């Protein structure tokens, strides 16, 4: 889904985290991995102006397992509104979506500065709802949430799959 962002200064303050291969701010190359990238470059935007650029070490990088969730916890605690990366796993994506963070996937071979420009001009592809293949994901993926959230897990049957992030609302997320 592509959406042109409104860019009125002062009205639209936001933070964007980009998975990166080095701490070199806007010159760092985007890392295609979300959970196991070495750094996140956190860019603060005021309208279409960059007001702050900060590199944060990804403490999840060396986690034996569950790196995606740990990285999601990290970027959420930084208070970001959007995440730009190459690939993000289903678990981490679901977590970010639950927290209302927009996720842009499929970025490779570019610098953080480039993708921020692309982001501002609405050129990046936002993941909205996942497609729904497979018979009830059950334990394998186990997307179940705690009781308190009052929602169950599992993916339904695979109808209406577009080649990429097609499909409308997904019921069970």
């Amino acid at each position, binding site marked *: 889904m592509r959406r042109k962002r409104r860019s009125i200064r002062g009205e639209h303050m936001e933070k964007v985290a980009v998975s990166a291969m080095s701490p070199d701010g806007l010159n760092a190359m985007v890392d295609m991995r979300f959970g196991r990238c070495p750094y996140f470059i956190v860019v603060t935007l005021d309208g279409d102006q960059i007001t702050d650029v900060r590199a944060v070490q990804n403490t*999840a990088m060396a*986690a034996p*397992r*569950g*790196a*995606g*969730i*740990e990285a*999601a*916890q990290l970027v*959420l*605690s930084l208070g970001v509104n959007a995440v730009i990366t190459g690939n993000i796993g289903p*678990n981490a994506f*679901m*977590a970010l979506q*639950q*927290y209302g963070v927009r996720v842009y996937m499929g970025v490779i071979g570019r610098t953080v500065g480039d993708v921020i420009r692309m982001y501002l001009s609405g050129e990046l592809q936002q993941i909205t709802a996942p497609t729904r293949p497979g018979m009830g994901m*059950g*334990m*394998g*993926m*186990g*997307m*179940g*949430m*705690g*009781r*308190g*959230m*009052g929602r169950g*897990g599992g993916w339904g049957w695979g109808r209406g799959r577009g080649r990429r992030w097609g499909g409308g609302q997904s019921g069970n997320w």
Partner: protein
Amino acid sequence: MSMTHIGAASKDIDVPVVCVTGGKGGTGKSTVAVNLAAYFAREGLKVLIVDCDVSAPNVAILMNTTLSEKREVTSFLPSFDEKACVRCGKCVSVCRAHAILQVGDKPPIFFASLCKSCEICKVVCPAGAIKEERKVVGWTYTGSAYGVDIVSGELKEGEPNSAVVVKATKDRAYEVLKDGNYDVMIVDTAPGTHCDVIRSIWGSDVAIAVTEPTPFGMHDLGLILELTRMLGVKTKVVINRSDILENGGAKVREICEKYDSEVIAEIPLDREILYSYVKGYPAVLRNVDTPGVRALVRLGETVRGLLNL
């Protein structure tokens, strides 16, 4: 330090234990285990066979029997009470599996597939907001056939955590051992060298590694011998289908030498063994005299000697 008081092996029961393992799948572990059990029973010994290959338990199938006394194996799953939760993030910080995520004033999100059921989240929660839920991850059964008593475990399909079912299966086996005057226990393990296999081998007096003379079989034999050496369990090797590759036996012996082990039986391809397999009737109990069946009987005698039964 004595290690015998650990977990399932801690029941203070003095019954000799032999486990049948072998690294690669499909080498004939269960066939060897079942025939060993049937041979012991035929010789008048009281035998318990334990099927710890919980992903594909087939001892009962090979003995053509139906198991009963099904018992559930459950494991812990946290259930979050959103109202009671004080959003302190303690559960997130202690969960090394990263199965919980919580930021700010939002309620926690739980990822069941990553949870290792360690329960520490519930322990550290200061608000009592994490309740215990049990989920069924498998079952254990008992039964008997051909004078052999059976304990078997079964993993629920799609459950990743098989270790807990293996543990429950061994616990159940020790429970059965306590009530009877058993002479020997035989444990059939899963293929591989992962933690299920380690748990199955743990506490055995002797391990029997069943292999076949193929490149994969021999590669995996090296791994299992390395593992049993690490665990300090004396291991003997059985070559199944010993005649499928020329000179296979010599190569297997080379590996054995490296690990201070030895080949105690070579079982050639034998239609009678295959027939027994399909019929669910252990070959050693049938009145046939073929090279394969003779090798199985001799193996029984040898293992009996090893365990001083």
